[in-house]
């Protein structure tokens, strides 16, 4: 079963950034999306999340949940309240949720090991703990809730994190997809740690083509997408 299938998809803002994307993503995959700055990583994610219209081609599959990069840690919200904010459509005027949604939040917190931090102010959490909280907002927004089929897109979840926090977040990404019904695509500039965590790599080459480690060697893919690696 595919969670996502693209057909000659072209994405960009007015002008194409990546074209001819034919991609299939199945359950349990943890995919690294890499490429140079401005290569179109965020644009591809925003298109798959339905925020940006494609410039050409099409895609079908389960609705994807996108978590943007660098969400500010606003003080005065507990971690549980922060996760509630992401359920905008399901909540009442004062942000209150029904029992089912509250249960899904509790499950997501437990699954990510955040249960003991649920009532802590997010301003007091470490960057890594908060980033895991952001991942929890994606889990509760999956169409069938946490544990159901779905596609999570994370735009640079390890940006600005120190080594310890980065490794924690990457381990979390791997853990939530292993043997599960959901798949995850995350972008990163940190190739060393991220390639070790990912089960598959998608790289955007300078010519605007998407390369897939399913069909080509991982090292060759990285050298195609980052020509500077060849000169080292």
């Amino acid at each position, binding site marked *: 079963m595919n969670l996502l299938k693209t057909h000659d998809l072209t994405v960009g803002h007015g002008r194409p950034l990546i074209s001819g994307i034919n991609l299939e993503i199945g359950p349990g995959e943890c995919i690294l999306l890499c490429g140079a700055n401005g290569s179109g990583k965020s644009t591809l994610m925003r298109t798959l*999340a339905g*925020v940006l219209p494609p410039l050409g081609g099409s895609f079908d599959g389960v609705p994807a*949940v*996108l*978590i*943007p990069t660098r*969400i*500010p840690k*606003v*003080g*005065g*919200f*507990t971690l549980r*309240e*922060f996760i509630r*904010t*992401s*359920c*905008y*459509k399901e*909540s*009442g*005027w*004062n*942000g209150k949720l029904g029992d089912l949604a509250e249960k899904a939040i509790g499950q997501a917190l437990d699954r990510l090991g955040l249960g003991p931090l649920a*009532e802590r*102010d997010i301003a007091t959490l470490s960057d890594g703990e908060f980033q895991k909280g952001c991942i929890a*907002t994606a889990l509760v*927004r999956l169409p069938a809730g946490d544990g159901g089929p779905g596609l999570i897109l994370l735009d640079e979840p390890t940006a600005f994190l120190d080594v310890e926090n980065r490794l924690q977040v990457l381990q979390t990404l791997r853990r939530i997809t292993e043997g599960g019904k959901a798949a995850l695509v995350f972008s990163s500039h940190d190739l060393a740690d991220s390639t070790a965590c990912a089960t598959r790599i998608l790289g955007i080459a300078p010519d605007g083509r998407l390369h897939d480690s399913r069909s080509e060697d991982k090292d060759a893919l990285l050298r195609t997408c980052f020509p500077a690696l060849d000169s080292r």
Partner: protein
Amino acid sequence: MTSARTYRIRLAAGFGLLLAFMALDLAVGRVPVRPGDPLFRDILLDIRLPRILTAVLAGAALALAGAQMQAVFRNPLADPHIMGVSGGAGLGAACATLLVTGAAAGSGLSVAGAAFLGAVLASLLIILVSSRLRNGTVLLIFGVMLGFIFSALTSILEYTANEESLKLFYSWSAGSFAGTRPGGIAILAGAGVLGLALAGANAKGLDLLLFGEDYATLAGAPVRRIRACAMVSACLLTGATTAFCGPLGFVGIVAPHIARRLTGSSRHARILLPTLLTGALLALTADLLAQLPRVPLPVGSTLALVGIPIILGILLPRKKDRP
């Protein structure tokens, strides 16, 4: 973060403090009166009570407008005064007092109406620009610049006006809670109820804006509608208040910060009522200070004297925050 019980206790204490301040303010005035004096009833009911009700409604309204603007612009210093809305009202009032001649010139109603129109004009400009600009800092700079433009135009009008008109305009621009008639209080109360209803209905959307427009959009929130609703509410509250009381700063900035500190929360559903109470208490304190000397002081000045130390207390790092 305070528990639900502590929150309710603090809210009740806030209401109690508000009633106590209202009673205290009722006892203070230019003319000392005691029960049994022939003018006791008239002074209390016709002069002091309307002044106190105006202070409570104006303080609450400005505080509520500030809380919404701080969420919309994601800036802790945003308030109607800084964003140029009060400046727009000032220009409107200047036009009514310094330009208009004849029977309507400088009448309370025409000044209030013109100030309200000026506030609406400034708010519309900000809403229009905010729909195109995504950067909150640039938007804040735009608001400050707008305030300067309105101030410059007002100065030009002042420069060309006669002495009598100038005196009338200065008495409005210095700020006062006195002299509002029952009709004016009813308008202030109506604007307050409507503004609060809009803010309450928008509370969870305002929460989302604090985490950025991108986060809010991806969570499925109608960001444009949330921003427009907040600005309409802030415009209504500021326009009505400035029209009757003059341009008053500080309440809009300070009150939401105090409410956040007291509740330990930034959730709007939780801070709206404490913000209203804090704004009303600040305005009453400023009014009390204004009434203490033999000649009442302008409320705009006493509010600044009350507000500036609080703003500095918020901005300056506390001992435990220092590295």
